[in-house]
Each structure stands twice: as C-alpha cells, then as structure tokens.
C-alpha cells in the first residue's frame, strides 16, 4: 500500500500516543512535533519500521522563536523514505536557556555536519555528538549569529551612517 500521511500518523499515534502533537500538513508534507526527550526514539521507530522506512535524513536545521518562552529553539528534521519517495518533517522544541538535544549521529551519519552547522548558527548543544565544534564560521566567533537578538550586520563597522543602513534603531 502507498505510504500516506494518514497511515504515518496512525502508526505514530499507535506507538507514541499523546507524545505526537502539532500535526499539520503544509503543502502536503506531514509535519509533527514530539518532546525533545523522545526525538531519538521516534526517529529510530521511523527508521527501523518496515512499512515506514525513513532511512535518509535530508536536512537538519533550527529555528529561533524569541517570542515563545520555554520553546524558543525548534530543531527540525526532514526525513525521506527513498523507496516510496515520501518526505516528512519532525520538530522538537527546547528552551534557549537549556538548548540540549540528543544527537542523531548514531542513527544517521549525515547528521554529523548538519548538527555542527546547527550548533554553529543557533547554539543547539547536541548531547553525544562526536565532534561538536564550529563548521562554517571562524573559530573565534563568540556568539550564534542566526539567533534573533544578533543583528545581521557586522557590528564592528564604524564607517557607515547607521540611519542609512537600518542599524542602531528598530526594524519597524
């Protein structure tokens, strides 16, 4: 049988029950949320189950929601069933004060560099990662540039008129 979104949802809810929340289907892509303590268990189930078979991690990134206290950082996993060509999206949320999420490197080798990148830009601490250090930015960087509190522009620059370049004031 074809791997439909309804079937994936049914299997997940049979196995994990109330832990699966926030189910939606933007543009037809099945999306759901689990507590961060269960991200590995859910991915292991999706990976190992014969009928589901999500054996490929396409993408791993994070989103910063500064206005959601306690769940500021969302870590997003994109999983792919290569045989059925079905993609799903898995989200876990964590507080920015305690950004610890279990690493998926044991399950998917491709998670290694993507978790380093996510750490580099958002400061998500992937517990158990074999080599969690910056991958793209300079090693001397002492902040996580994609978090919303840091402006995009280089703050060391003094030769530009701030009013003309949207710095120093508010965005709106």
């Amino acid at each position: 049988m074809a791997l439909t979104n309804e079937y994936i949802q049914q299997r997940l809810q049979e196995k994990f029950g109330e832990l699966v929340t926030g189910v939606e289907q933007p543009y037809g892509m099945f999306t759901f949320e689990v507590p961060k303590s269960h991200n590995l268990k859910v991915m292991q189930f999706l990976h190992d189950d014969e009928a589901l078979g999500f054996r490929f991690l396409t993408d791993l990134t994070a989103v910063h929601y500064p206005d959601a206290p306690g769940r500021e950082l969302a870590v997003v996993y994109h999983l792919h069933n290569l045989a059925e060509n079905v993609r799903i999206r898995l989200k876990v949320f964590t507080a920015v004060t305690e950004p610890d999420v279990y690493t998926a490197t044991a399950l998917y080798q491709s998670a290694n560099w993507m978790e380093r990148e996510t750490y580099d830009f958002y400061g998500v601490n992937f517990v158990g990662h074999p080599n969690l250090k910056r991958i793209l930015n300079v090693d001397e960087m002492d902040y996580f540039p994609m978090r919303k509190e840091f402006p995009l522009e280089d703050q060391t620059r003094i030769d530009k008129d701030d009013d003309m370049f949207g710095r120093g004031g508010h965005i709106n």
Partner: protein
Amino acid sequence: MPRPVRFNIHPKQADIHDNIAIADMPAGLQGEGYFATSLEKVVGLARKNSIWPLPFATSCCGIEFMATMGSHYDLARFGSERMGFTPRQCDLLMVMGTIAKKMAPVLRQVYLQMAEPRWVLAVGACASSGGIFDTYSVLQGIDQIIPVDVYVPGCPPRPEAILDGVIKIQELVHNESLRRRNSEHYKNLLGTYGIQ
C-alpha cells in the same frame, strides 16, 4: 545561399610609425654618448613597466579580471604580462572578490609571503569595503588586515576600470622613493596592521 566570403587578399600595411608606446625618458643630463640621471628614476621606470601581478580572485570581480587579462583588453600591454601564482615572485597583489572572515588569515599570509617592494590593488566593492555583504561573516574591506594602495570601485568594475587601477599603481611605482620601504613612516604603517 552561400555566404559572401571576403578574403583578406589586400592586407593593409600596419602603420607602426609613431604608434608604438615607448616609455618616456626620465629627466637627465644628455650629451653625445652619455646620459646621466638618478638611479631612482631608472629603477622606477623599470619596475613600473614590468609589474608581476598575483591575482587573488574569489568571485565575480575575478571574472572581470579574466576578461582584463584576455586578448580584448590585454593587461599585457602595460608590462604586466606574466601572472605569477606564487607570492614570492610577485610585486602586485590584486584582490578581487568577497573576502570572508575565514579567508582573511589566508589573504594576510599571502601578503606576508610577498617580498618588498609590494603593492596591493583592491578591485571591486567587496574587496574595498565589504560591498553589499554587510554581514557577520564577511570582512568589511581588506584594508582591515593589509594596507591597500589603490581601490577600484564597481560591482563588478569593468575591465577598463581595472586597467585604470593598474595604471594608477604604475604611477605609484614610478614615483616611489627608493628609501620609502626602509622609512620609519612605512614601518609605522605596517605596524598599524600588526606586521613587523
């Protein structure tokens, strides 16, 4: 229908009389069988017309530079015939393109490996000031890490502009005092960049 083909069977004889660029003689004392001038002027003249550029091309300005080096614009007309891809032998570092902060130590290393006298040409908005990349990952102008002699504006500059920049460098080379590189002023200038 066959295309009309014209063969060049009556080639025009090239008029090379008065059409070859020859460097002007420096001011000096001239008589029958001798010419006297200062060594500085002779060295300046020789250096000016035999600059070896070292291209450091990272993005679209590098493409413009390739056109500048090509037969159409032909940087070789100005004595800069030979690109050197080793910093040890080159006189002019041409930085073309966005320099990310992670690339900055590499560029600085290349500059330090060049022997004195050395000149630097920053081509394009990114190399000169960071350009549109006013962001945390891009160096806001290479003059934050190495001294720059001539800036070429443009995004990217046309080959004519790059040629103009090279000619400006030639003027600097031509008029530079032989003592400049040993002066306190020059040492202080390098000192502000942390170069001994």
